[in-house]
C-alpha cells in the first residue's frame, strides 16, 4: 500500500477514529486503526468491539492499494507533530512507514487479520434525519445519562421513532431530559433503541454539515448511523428503560417564567457556596421574584435575587441540585424557560418550547 495524504484531513480523521479505539485493552489489534487504500479512497476504521467507526478520509492520492493495522495513538501523534502539508504512508507487511520531507517513521503494526470485522449494514435504513436536527436532540439529552446504574438500562440514551417523529430521552434516576425532533421515515414500523453514551458522544463530533443527511438503521442489537463519508455502528444497551412517561408530572400548578441567562447567572452564583455535603440550593418562588440561597458548612452562605418574568400559583420553597439545573439550562437555546412545580418534595419540570422538557427531582431541605 502506498498513499499520499493531506496531513490536516488525515489528522482530523485520526482524531475521530481515536475516539473509538480502546485505550486499555489486552488485545493489541484493538489499539490499532485499520487503514485501507482502494479505488482512490482511504478508509480508516477503529473499534472497541462495542462501538465501531469507519470513515473515508478526503484529499488522498492512492498510488498502490492495500491495508494495514497501525497503532492508532502513535500514528495520530506522528501526524499531529509533523510539519509538512502532505505525508506518504507506505506499508510492507505489518510495518508502516510515514514519510515526510524531513522525517521518516517506521511503525510496527499488527497482522490485518487480527482486526475484528466491522459490522456491515444490511437492508434499508429505518429513517433519515438531517445531521443538525439529530445533533440538536442528542446534545439536549446526552448529558443526563447515568454513569453507573444497576437497576435500569439508563447508561444510554433512549431513541424512539414513531413515523416521522423522533423522541430522545436520557436519565440518571434523579433528572430526565427529553427532546423531540422530526425525521423522514423509510420503514413503517416504530422502533426503539438504547444507545450507549460513548457512541453518541462520538456521533456529535462526526457531523460538520448540518444539512448532511444521516441514515439510521436499528437492527436486532445494533444501531447504524451512516453518512456519505462515515458509518458509526454501536451495540445497543440491553435491558429496560424505566417507564419515563409515568414520571413526567402534569400537575405543576406553580409556574415561573425566567430569562434563561438571568436564571443561569443566579444558579451559578448560589452554587458557589454549596459543597459535597450540602449540594442543594434553596429556591423561594413568589410573586415578588425568586430568592436563591445556599450554605456550605465552614465556608459561608449566599443569597441571590432573581427577577421572574412571570409567576402564577402559591409561594413555594424547594431545593434543587444546582448542577442539575445548569446542565439543562446550558442546552436550552431559547431566551426564556418555564419552570413548573407542585411541592417541595415533587419533581420540577423545565420546559423550553414544545421540543424540550427536563424533569428534575428536588433535594430535601433541612
Amino acid at each position, binding site marked *: 500500500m502506498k498513499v499520499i495524504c493531506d496531513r490536516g484531513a488525515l489528522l482530523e480523521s485520526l482524531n475521530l477514529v481515536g475516539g473509538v479505539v480502546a485505550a486499555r485493552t489486552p488485545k493489541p489489534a484493538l489499539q490499532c486503526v485499520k487503514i485501507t487504500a482502494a479505488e482512490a479512497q482511504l478508509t480508516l476504521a477503529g473499534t472497541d468491539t462495542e462501538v465501531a467507526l469507519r470513515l473515508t478520509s478526503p484529499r488522498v492520492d492512492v498510488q498502490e492499494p492495500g491495508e494495514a493495522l497501525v497503532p492508532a495513538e502513535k500514528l495520530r501523534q506522528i501526524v499531529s507533530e509533523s510539519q509538512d502539508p502532505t505525508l506518504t504512508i507506505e506499508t510492507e507487511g505489518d510495518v508502516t512507514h510515514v514519510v515526510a520531507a524531513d522525517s521518516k517513521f517506521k511503525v510496527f503494526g499488527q497482522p490485518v487479520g487480527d482486526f475484528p470485522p466491522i459490522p456491515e449494514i444490511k437492508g434499508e435504513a429505518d429513517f433519515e434525519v438531517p445531521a443538525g436536527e439529530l445533533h440538536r436532540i442528542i446534545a439536549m439529552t446526552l448529558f443526563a445519562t447515568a454513569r453507573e446504574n444497576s437497576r435500569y438500562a439508563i447508561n444510554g440514551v433512549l431513541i424512539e421513532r414513531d413515523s416521522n417523529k423522533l423522541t430522545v430521552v436520557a436519565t440518571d*434516576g*434523579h*433528572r*430526565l431530559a427529553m427532546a423531540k425532533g422530526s425525521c423522514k421515515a423509510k420503514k413503517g414500523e416504530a422502533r426503539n433503541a438504547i444507545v450507549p453514551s460513548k457512541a453518541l458522544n462520538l456521533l456529535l463530533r462526526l457531523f460538520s454539515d448540518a444539512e448532511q443527511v444521516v441514515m439510521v438503521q436499528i437492527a436486532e442489537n445494533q444501531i447504524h448511523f451512516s453518512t456519505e463519508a462515515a458509518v458509526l455502528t454501536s451495540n445497543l444497551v440491553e435491558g429496560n428503560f424505566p417507564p419515563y412517561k409515568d414520571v413526567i408530572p402534569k400537575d405543576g400548578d406553580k409556574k415561573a417564567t425566567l430569562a434563561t441567562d438571568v436564571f443561569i447567572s443566579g444558579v451559578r452564583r448560589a452554587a458557589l457556596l454549596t459543597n459535597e455535603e450540602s*449540594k442543594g440550593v434553596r429556591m423561594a418562588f413568589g410573586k415578588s421574584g425568586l430568592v436563591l440561597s445556599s450554605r456550605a458548612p465552614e465556608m459561608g452562605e449566599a443569597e441571590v435575587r432573581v427577577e421572574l418574568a412571570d409567576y402564577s400559583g402559591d409561594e413555594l420553597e424547594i431545593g434543587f*441540585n444546582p448542577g442539575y439545573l445548569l446542565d439543562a439550562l446550558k442546552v436550552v437555546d431559547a431566551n426564556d424557560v418555564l419552570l413548573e412545580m407542585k411541592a417541595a418534595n415533587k419533581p420540577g419540570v423545565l420546559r423550553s418550547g414544545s421540543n424540550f422538557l427536563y424533569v*428534575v427531582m428536588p*433535594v*430535601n431541605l433541612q
Partner: protein
Amino acid sequence: MGAPRWILHLDMDAFFAAVEQRDKPALRGLPVLIGHDGPRGVVATASYEARPYGCHSAQPMSIAKRRCPQAVVLPVDGQRYREVSQQMFAILDEFSPVVEPLSIDEAFLDLTGTQRSLGEPAEVARRLKDRIQSELKLTASIGLAPNKFLAKMGSDMNKPDGLVIINPQDIDRVLLPLPVSRLWGIGRVSAAHLEEMGIRTVGDLRQLSIERLQRYFGSDAERYYNLSRGIDERPVVPDQEAKSIGHEQTFPADLGDADDVRRVLFDQVQQVAYRLRKHGMMAKGVSVKIRFGDFQTISRSTTLHAATDLTTELWQAAREMFDRWPFQPVRLIGVTAERLNTGGESLELFPDPDRARQRKLDQLADHINEKFGKQTIRRGGADRTHGQR
C-alpha cells in the same frame, strides 16, 4: 433564649493508664506511668495509684520516677488508645447528635432538647457513665451544667468516676467560693496579679465592675465578667473534620473462622448504619480494615453507586471487600462509612420498591433498639453460606 441548655462534659479518668490496667490485669492497683522512659521523657498519664506520690501528667518522667520509684513505666501505645477512643466516641454519638471532641478522651455533648428522645439530662448522664463502664470497662467523670464552662468545671470536681450536676440555681453556691485560677483563661500570672488586689475567689471577682475589669484585662474583660457570673454562651461545635463513622474491634486472640469474622463485621455494619441514620448522614464510600494474625494490615475502600444509609447496602459493600481476601486468621476487623453528606442528594425519579422496604426495616429495627436497648434485635444471615436477606 428558648429552652435552657444542658451541656455535658465527659473526661475519661487517667485514660491511657486505665486502658493499660484494664488490658493487663497484673497492673491493677499498681502505680503506672505512661510516657517515654528516657532522660527527656514526659508523663502522658499517671494512674490514680501514682498520684498520691505527686506524679501527674506533663511532668518530666525522671521526676515522676524519683517520686514513685516503684511505678511501672509503659510507653504510649497510641494506636491502642485511639481504638478505645473510637469506641468511646461511638457511644457518645448515641447520646447526642452534637458531640464536640476536645481530645482523645474528652468531649462536650449538647443535650439540649433531647429530653423527649433520650430522657432527662441527669438520667442520660448516669446512663452514659454506665455504658462506658459496662462496655469499655473504664470510668469517666462527667459534668452536667447549663454551659460548657460549668460542665467542664463539674467533671473536674469529683474525679475519678464522678458525676456532678450543676443546676441553674446551684451556680452561685458552686462558683463563688472557687479560686479565680479555676476560671478558664486565668493563668498563674493573672491569678497572682488579682491576688495582689485582694481578689482570690470568683465571688471577689464578681464584685468588680466591667470598667475595672477592662482596666486589668482589656478585651478579655467581658469574658471574665460573664464567667464570674456563670455565663458562657459558647455553642457545642460538632467535629467538622469527622467525615467518617467507623467501628473496629481487636480480638483477644486470632479469629480463625471466616463466618465468625463476618458476623462481627455485620454487627459493626449495623451499628455504623444506625449511627449514620441517627445523624441524618449518607455515605458514598465504605472501607474495611483487616489485620491478620501476622499483623499484616490491609485497608480497602469502595465507592457506592449512590450515597446510602441502608444497612443492607453498606453490608453488601463491606462483605464484598472482605470476601475478596483469601481468608486467614484475623486479629482486627473494622468498617468505616466514608464520604458522608447530610443527605443533600436529589430524590429518586424511579423509587426502588426494594429500597423502600429496606428503609422500613431499618426504621423498625432502630425504633425497637432505641426503645428496648441497643441490639435488642439484630439481623441474621451474616454467614456466607446462607446469603443475606
